[in-house]
């Protein structure tokens, strides 16, 4: 079953390998010398022309010091961090405008769902164009420890919206399904107003898109208002609704993940600049 659930492709493996090489700070030439393979082969593997043979894969893992199973879970993780132990310092191999790296507060796993939507739902050329415009090498999102500032979330959401890759209704399901955990709170169990506030406080991105107010609290239900910080930024009602749905669902998913309590979200009211929703625990 697993291989059907998680079918690997030469393209995704190639990008992962390229990201690992850049992260280890090696040029293609240097890497090939170390692995004793031809540059043509490595180039074809990195460009997703074919899968690496297993002996080459192990050579790659040795050279870049990556976990041989990382092709399966799809990111370069702390194994490298342990060796380099230099947060954001080994990202020199990636062309990234430093404006995305100032005051970093979110890691690539939080952004990966958005990148994946852009990758899966738009043609390769368009995908590359988006990241060229943003002056960011998309390979960097394979590096778990890469950290960015919150502006990047806003801009990726805007791109998804502009390219009409998801409607504001789809965004609830598609994004929240893939969202990763990103909260420093240790709260658990049925959320209380205190713990909910702590989740909200730990939201890194809400400060740029929207903010939450808890309007009412009962034993197993919260009434929350989600307001856009700067509504003039959004040109259409659909666009506003897209961002509000995203952030409300993000809140729900994170509370659910952290508290391990199943929550139901009901959207009760929506105006131009805000929406009101309830979170109910079962």
């Amino acid at each position, binding site marked *: 079953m697993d291989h059907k659930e998680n079918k690997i492709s030469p393209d995704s493996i190639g990008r992962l390998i390229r990201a690992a090489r850049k992260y280890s700070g090696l040029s293609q030439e240097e890497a090939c010398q170390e692995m004793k393979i031809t540059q043509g082969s490595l180039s074809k593997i990195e460009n997703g022309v074919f899968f690496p043979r*297993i002996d080459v894969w192990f050579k790659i893992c040795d050279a870049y010091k990556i976990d041989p199973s990382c092709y*399966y879970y799809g990111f370069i993780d*702390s194994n490298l961090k342990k060796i380099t132990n230099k947060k954001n310092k080994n990202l020199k191999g990636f062309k990234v405008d430093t404006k995305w790296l100032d005051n970093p507060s979110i890691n690539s796993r939080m952004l990966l769902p958005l990148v994946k939507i852009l990758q899966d739902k738009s043609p390769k050329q368009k995908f590359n164009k988006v990241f060229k415009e943003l002056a960011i090498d998309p390979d960097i999102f394979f590096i778990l420890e890469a950290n960015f500032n919150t502006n990047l979330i806003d801009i990726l959401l805007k791109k998804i919206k502009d390219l009409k890759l998801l409607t504001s209704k789809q965004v609830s399901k598609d994004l929240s399904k893939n969202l*990763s955990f990103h909260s420093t709170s240790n709260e658990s169990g049925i959320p209380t107003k205190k713990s909910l506030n702590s989740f909200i406080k730990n939201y890194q991105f809400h400060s740029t898109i929207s903010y939450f107010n808890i309007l009412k609290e009962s034993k197993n239900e919260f009434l929350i208002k989600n307001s856009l910080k700067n509504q003039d930024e959004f040109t259409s009602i659909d666009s506003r609704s897209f961002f509000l749905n995203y952030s409300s669902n993000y809140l729900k998913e994170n509370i659910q993940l952290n508290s391990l309590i199943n929550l139901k979200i009901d959207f009760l009211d929506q105006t131009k600049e805000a929406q009101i929703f309830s979170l109910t625990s079962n």
Partner: protein
Amino acid sequence: MNYLAENITRFKKECEFNTKQLLEALDISSYQLDMINNPKSTIRLDLAEHLCSQLNVSLRKLYCEKIEISPCISNIKKLNQTELPEKYSYLKFSKTKALEYVFNFIDKKYGILYRKSILRDMQVTPSFFEDLNNTINLNFVYDLYNRLYQKGCDQKSFKSIGETLVNINKKTFRDNFKDLHKDVDIFESLFTDLISIFERNFHYWVDHVSLNEIIIKSQMKKDLKGNLKDFKNNSHVCHMKTGALGSMLTTKGFPVSKIIKTHCEFKGSNHCSYTITRTRQYKYTKQLLS
């Protein structure tokens, strides 16, 4: 050394498959099997991943080690009764319930595929943990925690895992202490719950109770001590237990401000000792000193 061909041959032999049955079981072609068996050729990563998936084993294990065959057989035959690797299949005193939150933590932090990847490397199928009353031994718990440590989990994370584990199960702990008159009895009734819910590897007792301080001790049960082959102790489980004990007392009305492990059985002491400092007088004041 490449163990791939040898592992596949051992699998075929232990399953008593003929070549046709092997091809069907692994869902590969005879050409692919020839590639696997030919020492001069190497297979591609996608075929290797396909074999890993069929056998529920990690690439590193399949390629670089002699794998355990019985878990592969139960995976490929989709048997209800999952075979555990030998290392984890005796003196099974830990309930899978004790690991429920650990896996949730992994899912949250690294993703579901990462959890599956760890379990593949340990040759345990994810479905084994669906039944929260299944049992597994301490080797597994310590191995799992060690992998988390290698991935960058720190002391705080392990403590938090312990706290949350108890917190989400707090309803299963006893709530009514009316028939108990001494603190010691109350605490020890909580330990009885702890053991019945999560694990029977350790014996817990209260060594000292005062207005401000409680000292809890624990010791590995006699039938386990020295009988767990390949047991590699690490302090990560100790940090998790520290969180669990603190949370257990807090959720039942004994506010804890600080909990410190002062002695460790695995560092040469006769027992583990935890000193717990209270924040304020707790609500179940009955008889303060035993």
